[in-house]
């Protein structure tokens, strides 16, 4: 039996969660205070994921903006974080951009899109 101590990143409470594992299988989760926390803990020990936020280059903005902020529309495997940012290096968005516009489909083979998080004229 293996015990993993986690700090939940779901919200600012930062609950201390203990997950008990047996050969990779989750046996017990204690310390969470909400459903999301329990879910986070299960995922964190089996397949940890993160939302990645970044910027991509922007052309054609009337405001003079040269970049627009973006994020992965869903969480992606933690091990793919750098593959995602590398994939964003050559993306060039064209203004105008609205919140939620897809800037890159299926980033780094994750099946997740990159969407704009800011509207730019």
């Amino acid at each position: 039996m293996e015990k993993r101590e986690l700090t939940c990143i779901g919200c600012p409470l930062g609950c201390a969660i203990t997950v008990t594992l047996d050969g990779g299988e989750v046996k017990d989760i204690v310390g969470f205070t909400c459903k999301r926390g329990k879910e986070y803990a299960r995922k964190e020990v089996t397949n940890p994921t993160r939302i990645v936020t970044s910027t991509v280059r922007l052309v054609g903005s009337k405001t003079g903006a040269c970049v627009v902020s973006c994020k992965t529309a869903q969480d992606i495997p933690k091990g793919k974080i750098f593959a995602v940012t590398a994939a964003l290096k050559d993306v060039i968005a064209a203004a105008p951009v609205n919140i939620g516009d897809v800037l890159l489909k299926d980033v780094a083979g994750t099946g997740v899109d990159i969407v704009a998080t800011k509207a730019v004229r």
Partner: protein
Amino acid sequence: MYDVIIIGAGVTGCAVARYLSRYQGKMLVLERAEDVCCGTSKANSAIIHAGFDAAHGSLMAEMNVRGNRMVPQLARDLDFPFQMNGSLVVCMSEEDMPRLRALYENGVKNGVERLEIVDSKRLHEMEPNVSKNAVAALWAPTGGIVCPFNMTIALAENAYANGVEFRFNTKVTGFTRGSGCWTIHTDGGDFQTRYVVNAAGVYADVLHNMVSEERKLHITPRRGDYCLLDKQTGGFVSHTVFQLPGKLGKGVLVSPTVHGNIIVGPTAIDIEDRDGTNTTAAGLDDLIAKAGISVDNLPIRQTITSFAGLRAHEDHHEFVIGEVGDAPGFIDCAGIESPGLTSAPAIGETVAELLREKMGLAEKENFIATRKGLLDPKTLSREEYQALIRENPAYGQIICRCEQVTEGEIIDAIRRPLGARSLDGVKRRTRAGMGRCQAGFCSPRVMEILARELGVSQAEITKCGGASRLIVGVNKDSIGEVREG
């Protein structure tokens, strides 16, 4: 071939240039930094000393008292901030009273006017925050405070308006003496001139020793650490409060600045490094401990920045001004430490007069004696300010929140002759970034304006010239090369 080349664009070099610009001739100022006022002139107490301190009979005393009398008119002519707020030298114990009287006597002999010794009661009426333990003070109403940046910039701009050339980013590496002329070697090529003025601050001895065998100079960089306090503390003292050198050491001053801050400093730490303007923890601790001697409840926690400057301390603690005996045509302005800022106009006038005599320079017919500083909207009436914004909307856009500096002022600082080329250049001219947030909010905006006005990319913008770039690249530009987590 130049008639005169001045080495160093600090306050001394710029003052020489300004007074010399009254005369006809081809003149040049060489400066190793990217702007005027980048050495000792930018990091000092900003005090116009009354002149009681320098030993009677010394050149230092003479220049100090003369400079003190010149500054008020010069400030009006060249439009830089100056206030005659008066100085107090506080005596902390009865046993030090003879020293206070000696200082008074010295000042009277130097010709300082209206000096007085005030008792504890009067002292505390004048300055309620002076330590309760203070027993008396020397009161010098002719002491003042100045903006050292704008004083230096004003002198330089006025010299430039009168035809003096300036070359920045040019470091002198050596001299060759010809017949009746000098070749100055620099990292930017050679320059020929009939006369050289050495106003190189903490490097003045190095340059002097390159040309003279007869008398070697030795200058020690004497570091002074300072703390500048938030404007909220303005009014903590209204006079410049010195400590009488006594059993507790030389002491530090606490003074208002012309912009409404309180300045505390300097320490006096002799170092080797002529560019060693780094503060140290020991220096700052020492400063804070000493500052509490002459005043009570100094709000030192309201410090917005600390910095250090280097005084060019010559071994004999005396100004060395004049032609070098075994190097005709080479004029020293060396060992210009405190009261160098005060003395600058007198030194400038003295050296200009010396060169006029030697070279037989003729006066210009069209000498421009005055200079207008940056337009500060805060000095305008409401109606005037309103009209200014209508005419130039950039004056309605505040860029530096803390000091309320507008885009109009920043553009003026960049576009004017010898204009700002860096963040610090803008800061010294406009005060943008000099306030309590220390450029946290305004630096990206000022970088943007500088890039636009200078027609370069923001990546080229520096803090203070040279390698002091503010940004090193764009997002993700190294991804694929460096892969570290």
